[in-house]
């Protein structure tokens, strides 16, 4: 079980780092499009890592599948939303 715990700690902290990078990107980048880019990339990857990290802690397969489902759904929603916001920004200009 030790290996599982170590893997969890490593992967989850790696995920946290990616989230941090995403947030820094959000604050530093000049305009919305680049901010969007930073956000989606970092957060999706970060979430993936966190999910991977939690897999060993999970007791049943069903729970594991639920975690993966969460990740997939977030990916789907994230992608669509980014498309919409980008389209709005592209057409509307402004913030």
């Amino acid at each position, binding site marked *: 079980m030790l290996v599982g715990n170590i893997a969890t700690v490593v992967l989850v902290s790696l995920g946290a780092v990616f989230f941090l990078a995403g947030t820094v990107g959000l604050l530093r980048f000049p305009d919305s499009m680049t901010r969007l880019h930073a956000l989606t990339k970092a957060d999706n990857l970060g979430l993936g890592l966190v999910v991977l990290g939690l897999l060993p802690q999970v007791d049943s397969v069903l729970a594991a599948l639920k975690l993966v489902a969460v990740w997939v759904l977030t990916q789907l929603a994230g992608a*669509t939303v980014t498309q919409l916001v980008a389209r709005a920004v592209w057409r509307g200009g402004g913030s």
Partner: protein
Amino acid sequence: MSLALLADAALVLLVLGLAFWINAASRAFPAVVGYVAFGLLLALAWLRLSAGDVAMTEAAVGSGVTGAVLIAASVRLRSAETEAPPPALPLRLLALLLSGLVTAALAGLVLWTTGPAPSLADQAVQHLPGLGMGNAVTGVLIAYRALDTLLEKVVLLLALMGIWSLAKDRYWGGIPGPSRIQPTNGALILLARLLPPIGIVVAVYILWVGATDPGGAFQGGAILAAMWLLVMLAGLRDAPAISRPWVRLCVTVGPAAFIAVGLTGFALPNGFLSYPDSIAKPLIIAVESVLTLSIAVILGLLVAGPPERQP
């Protein structure tokens, strides 16, 4: 334990920060976006208070559907932003003083009341097996305080009728929403085709699991409504005309079933809104599923608004 407390403190600060942002934002749209985020964070807070059912309801309805309504409204009201000046300074100071007084009173009471808080938890849990239920909150909603839930459904119906009554006479019986949304946005169409099937499965699962774990009729209904709204927003299907018989039927079947089952209770020893011991669970699940259907349609139509186009 202090680490968990630290996390809670961070969450509380974030929630309060968003609350002040909502009040302070210069324009309505950013405030509404802030409110949606506030709602989701509040759902986390409910989880910390170990109230799973409430967290789901808050996320689905408190921030989700309410957010949809408010965002749509803030966009339509964008041009009417700048008229009224805020009230004069003395009024604002007095407002600050009095709301601060209320906050202080509540905070004082929260801090001051020590000792074991009286609770109905054990009574609720003790009678659950009789109903064949595992989730105490659903037990309270469907059995112990069933009258409140019944009246709440009537409230939903009246709210829907209230919104429909705001239609102009010539549009009565027509289709809600200012104009038919054209399916042009590729990404949204993809989502609207992919997500609903999953959403329906999740909704049914939540309805079913509500008997034993957090979930239940309302949360399931809210997810179904969200899926229906997604399809409508993507333009794949137009909102139904309110004079359609199936709309009237779906809207009224839930409360009607609940009242009917309640009335059958008169034949039982425990009277109105009591369930026969032998078939308590299946009966409750049946009632809940019909309620879910009704709630989904009602919530969808509440968001769609009053009819503004000819049928």
